[in-house]
């Protein structure tokens, strides 16, 4: 049961959930959550590969783990910024419904 494929499968499910969340929810905060799911799916992939892959010297490289930590930090920063942006958008248009925010229409 402790196999690389298991982690990859869970990661794929997380990524799929994240994608569906982003594409289907209209609430900007929910979309933000979807993004977090995608990021965590990627982080899980990194950690899994770091645990199951060996380098030429026969030891596990730490690159994957370090990458996961970076992603956590990045996700935190991103969440903070996006929440601020969402609040700013709400203040301006009194809505966080992305269907109604069409300011980017060409």
């Amino acid at each position, binding site marked *: 049961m402790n196999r690389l494929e298991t982690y990859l499968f869970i990661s794929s499910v997380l990524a799929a959930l994240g*994608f569906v969340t*982003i*594409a*289907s929810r209209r609430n900007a905060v929910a*979309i933000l959550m979807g993004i977090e799911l995608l990021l965590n799916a990627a982080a899980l992939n990194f950690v899994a590969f770091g645990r199951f892959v060996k380098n030429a010297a026969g030891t596990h490289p730490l690159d994957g783990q370090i990458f996961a930590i970076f992603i956590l930090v990045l996700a935190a920063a991103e969440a903070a910024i996006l929440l601020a942006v969402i609040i700013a958008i709400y203040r301006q248009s009194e809505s966080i419904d*992305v*269907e109604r*925010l*069409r*300011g*980017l*229409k*060409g």
Partner: protein
Amino acid sequence: MHETAGAIREFGLLKAILLLPLAGAIWNGFFGKWVQRRFGEKPISIVATAAAAGSFLVSLVSVLALRSADGALADRIYTWFSAGDLSVPVALLLDPLSSVMILVVTGVGSLIHVYSIGYMHGDGGYYRYFAFLNLFLFSMLTLVLGDNILLLFVGWEGVGLCSYLLIGFWFTDREKAAAGMKAFLTNRIGDLGFIVGVFALWWLFAGKGVHSLAFADMARSIRLIEGETVLGAPALAFIGIALFVGAAGKSAQIPLYVWLPDAMAGPTPVSALIHAATMVTAGVYMIARMHFLYTLAPAALAVVAIVGAATALFAATIGIAQTDIKKVLAYSTVSQLGYMMIGVGVGAYAAGIFHLMTHAFFKACLFLSAGSVIHAMGGEQDIRKMGGLRKKMPLTFLSMFLATLAIAGIPGFSGFFSKDEILWNAWAGPHGHPLLWAAGALGAGITAFYMFRLVFLAFFGECRASEETKHHLHESPRVVTTPLLALAALSVAGGWVGIPEALGGKSRFHHFLAGVFSPGGAHGEAIAHGEQAVHASRSLEYLLMAASVLIALGGIALAHRLYLARPDLPGRIVSRARLLHRIVENKYYVDEIYRATVIRFVLVLSRALRVFDDFVVDGVVNLSGWVVRIVALVSGWFDNTFVDGLVNAVSNGTIALGARARRLQTGAVQSYVIAVFAGILLLVLLYMGLSGRA
């Protein structure tokens, strides 16, 4: 003068004679308006009169210097222009001939300046008048002092301009402005002949290697061109007649005399100075100056003499029936100019110049007296409305009477000597003919008649003026009468310098000029022959003299009988010969004939040319304009359609493309996300497919 070239002496003072009046003209012309407004009339007249008088004084000094020099004085100022080999200097020449002229011009001119101070008093254009008068003196002195024919022509045109300006001095009166124009245009016709003559001279002399138009050089080389022809005519006769056409214009000879009577529209002192004493004699002076040419061209001389005689007689008859005091004097001037032309036309140049001088004195005196009368009569010029002025204006009467005696040729007065010399030469001179004498003598009788008619009507008998005019009658102020009396004295005594030897005189005037006209050498022969003839029969001379005096006395007696003794007679004669009187009174309808022929022809020609202009010249211009417009239209259409079309097509295409492309930007963020995932998916599938195949 030209044979004694060594005797020509430089005399730098000559230019002052010219420059003084020029300076006066410039000063009054440019600053006179301001001076008159600021300081009144006095400074203007002082400047102008001082310029004229100063010029007279310098002339006197120069003539005295000439007498002691015994030759000629020259003053070469600068080179006017050079064209090819021809070089024309601005150079002045004072020989006995020009010294007579400058003394007359500046002397009579100064007196008339003084007279004008009083006569023009109160005129708004006072400064303008004196500026023109000074400018006239300058031009006239250029004319007589110039040492070449081109400089003479400059003065010739200058005096014509001043004449025009002064005839039309009161230019607000259309008739007077038109009179000025008539004078100018008539003179232009004559000037054409003059220019033709000058060009012919230049051309012929240049052909012989003589590159100068100076009188002295031309006189020296005149024999070189004697045998030449111009347009098939003998060169000298052609040139002589061409120059005489110019002289006929300037000196009012048939057929170009018509401007002079109209010129009386100008102020009276102008009539006296320009249209009696000086400018109109320029033609006579020019012929005398070109005597070396005329002496060799008897045909040209004959034309001059015959035209002169015809003019003398013709104008005198018109003078009989004129009622305007100035018109009488104008026709008298035309007639007297005819006398001078007879004089120079028979080769008696000195006699012509002598009469020119005495005429300047007595005719200026007559005009100024007439001006004094007109002033006193409040502008009235009709002698039928005068009469009895003798008692009211004794000084004016005295001067007018003395001048009339002079012009009538009463022995002892100046006119007698000069007229007699002309008549004597007309009979017995080198180119004379008894018929010329007869015309002149008859003219003299008529002159005496109409002049005494004028005096009797204006100064004797009952005064026919209105009561109001009578009340204002007065003698003119001293500034007017002083020049009058001076001129009257000259009218009496001016001829005494030329008392002929037949009357116990010495013909000093003749001898003074002899150096100019009969210098021996090449063409002295004709003159010498003439003098022989003149000396041949003194008894004939006495006889002719007596005859002309008797004719003049007859004219006076007739005038006395008709206008004093039997004042009813003229009316009865007029009613008897109504047609003749009408013709003479209307000056033989010459003006009307000119209007019907020459002027009409010119007008028709100018209208035809105008039609040509309107249709042909304008047509060509309009056609070319039209063509250019068509070309421009086509080119504009091409520009709008093709060039602009290309540019617009590019931009329109870009806009259309942009409009399509912008549809992609829906603004719905999630659709972007889907597109991104779809893209990633596509790339992954593609990669897997590719690697799977590999």
